[in-house]
């Protein structure tokens, strides 16, 4: 079987005289997943060098945050990886809670886990759908995956009234308790979801074009992935069994039974499979959380404005795209002295060049798609 476009060069093609050409892909290009530019040096269609260039969406969130109170910064976190706002909310809330020593009620922890795992499913649906767009299965898988994502957005809309920028979590819990109709709707969704994932697999997992475009393409070996601080499905796709929910259990993740899917060779196909399996695992976690969900308060009282004691805290969670960390420094005032975001999408991009040099243009598109970046988080 052919393995990606890059291995199809015949010896006849190689003897032709060529010269390197520099081409800018993006910043406005449908396959760059936002305003992202790749400055690519080609020899014919083979990539000799690639430099990712970004910053088009840089809003200076880290600086702006130093001029807002802790709570006013919560909506900013929605605008990092805007496909995973709930996870961003959760990481930031946990960081402030650690800094200020705030306890979270049991019920709120469960609600947070349900939201974070639904968010993971939703983010992976977009990631996998967009990957198939890049491979040429234009719009059909994407649209089916958006059908399910829509149901998750409906659930989020029920709890906080928003479909994209939720601003749902608070220090010491969440902003509102679940509405009455939430649990039955959620139950219907998680009963249906495994069937939908089977449906995607029937359509795509063994599809010959998918295999040809993704097997053996964009390989990232495990040792290189670790050395480059890569995290999330990209790291696990390379065969490293590392997931913060298991290896450094935060919140209440130690109470749930779930597996960590990993790949073997670290190619585009492995990363795609890891994301699909993670969706199944997330459904398992949501089901358990829903069954165990206790009654009670959803928010502890915290002083307004919140003034954490001087100190610093680093908190990281397993966000859909990797290890999302917040490093906060407090000087005892109502605003953070330093607000640093450890953005998984930015750091995962480090290896893009190494993964595509020597391959063809079409492989670079697919490899970038398999890293699953979100420019809101890369640029901040």
């Amino acid at each position, binding site marked *: 079987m052919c393995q990606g476009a890059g291995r199809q060069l015949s010896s006849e093609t190689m003897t032709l005289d060529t010269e390197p050409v520099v081409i800018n892909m993006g910043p406005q290009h449908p396959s760059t997943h936002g305003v992202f530019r790749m400055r690519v040096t080609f020899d014919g269609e083979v990539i000799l060098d690639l430099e990712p260039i970004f*910053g088009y969406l840089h809003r200076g969130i880290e*600086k702006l945050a130093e001029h807002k109170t802790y709570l006013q910064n919560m909506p900013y976190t929605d605008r990092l990886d805007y496909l995973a706002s709930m996870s961003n909310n959760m990481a930031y809330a946990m960081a402030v809670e650690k800094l200020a020593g705030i306890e979270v009620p049991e019920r709120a922890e469960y609600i947070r886990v349900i939201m974070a795992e639904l968010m993971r499913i939703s983010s992976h649906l977009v990631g996998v759908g967009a990957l198939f767009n890049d491979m040429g299965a234009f719009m059909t898988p994407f649209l089916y995956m958006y059908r399910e994502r829509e149901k998750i957005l409906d659930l989020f809309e029920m709890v906080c009234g928003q479909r994209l920028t939720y601003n749902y979590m608070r220090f010491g819990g969440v902003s509102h308790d679940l509405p009455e109709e939430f649990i039955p709707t959620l139950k219907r969704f998680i009963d249906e979801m495994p069937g939908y994932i089977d449906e995607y697999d029937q359509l795509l997992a063994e599809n010959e074009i998918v295999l040809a475009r993704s097997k053996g393409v964009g390989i990232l070996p495990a040792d290189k992935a670790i*050395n480059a601080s890569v995290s999330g499905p990209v790291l696990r796709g390379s065969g490293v069994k590392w997931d913060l929910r298991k290896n450094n259990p935060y919140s209440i993740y130690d109470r749930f039974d779930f597996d960590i899917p990993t790949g073997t060779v670290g190619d585009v196909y492995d990363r795609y499979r890891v994301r699909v399996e993670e969706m199944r695992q997330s459904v398992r976690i949501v089901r358990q959380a829903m069954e165990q969900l206790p009654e009670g308060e959803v928010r502890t009282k915290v002083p307004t404005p919140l003034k954490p004691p001087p100190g610093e805290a680093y908190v990281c969670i397993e966000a859909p795209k990797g290890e999302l960390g917040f490093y906060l420094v407090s000087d005892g005032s109502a605003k953070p002295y*330093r607000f640093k975001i450890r953005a998984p999408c930015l*750091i995962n991009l480090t290896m893009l060049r190494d993964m595509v040099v020597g391959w063809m243009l079409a492989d670079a598109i697919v490899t970038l798609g398999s890293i699953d970046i979100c420019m809101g988080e890369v640029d901040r």
Partner: protein
Amino acid sequence: MTEPLSSSEVAQQIGEQLPDAVTGSDESTVFVRSESLLDVARFLKQNLDFDYLISITAVDFLDHFDVIYHLRSIKNNYSVVLRTRCDNRGSPRVPSVVSLWQGADFQEREIYDLMGITFEGHPNMKRIVLWEGYEGHPLRKDFHLDVPGGGKAT
């Protein structure tokens, strides 16, 4: 669970190999001299299996910068925090750790861009989110948001 290694023990182990490198330690952090940072980082990577650089951060304290390295060992699941101080505000310099952990590449460039700290030995030390030719470094505390261009930020 990722166990934070006892920073006093780590400091002691570094001290045995590299005397004068460590300036102190508190409950989670080892403080090192910026000149010895690369040696300390290499020691931690090779002898204590710190194979994963979680993040690099810089904080501006006006009279000095702190550069903070969060390290983890994926192999043994433990972590440590390294912290180094950088006094020269005119042209702050810290050795780059890209030769040890490739994951430092974009993070060091980002700190250079936004905080104005040069990482010596970095293969491609240029701005990453702002454009070439931009003056000033927005994350510095003397860069003011209410003045166009940040005021006198150098």
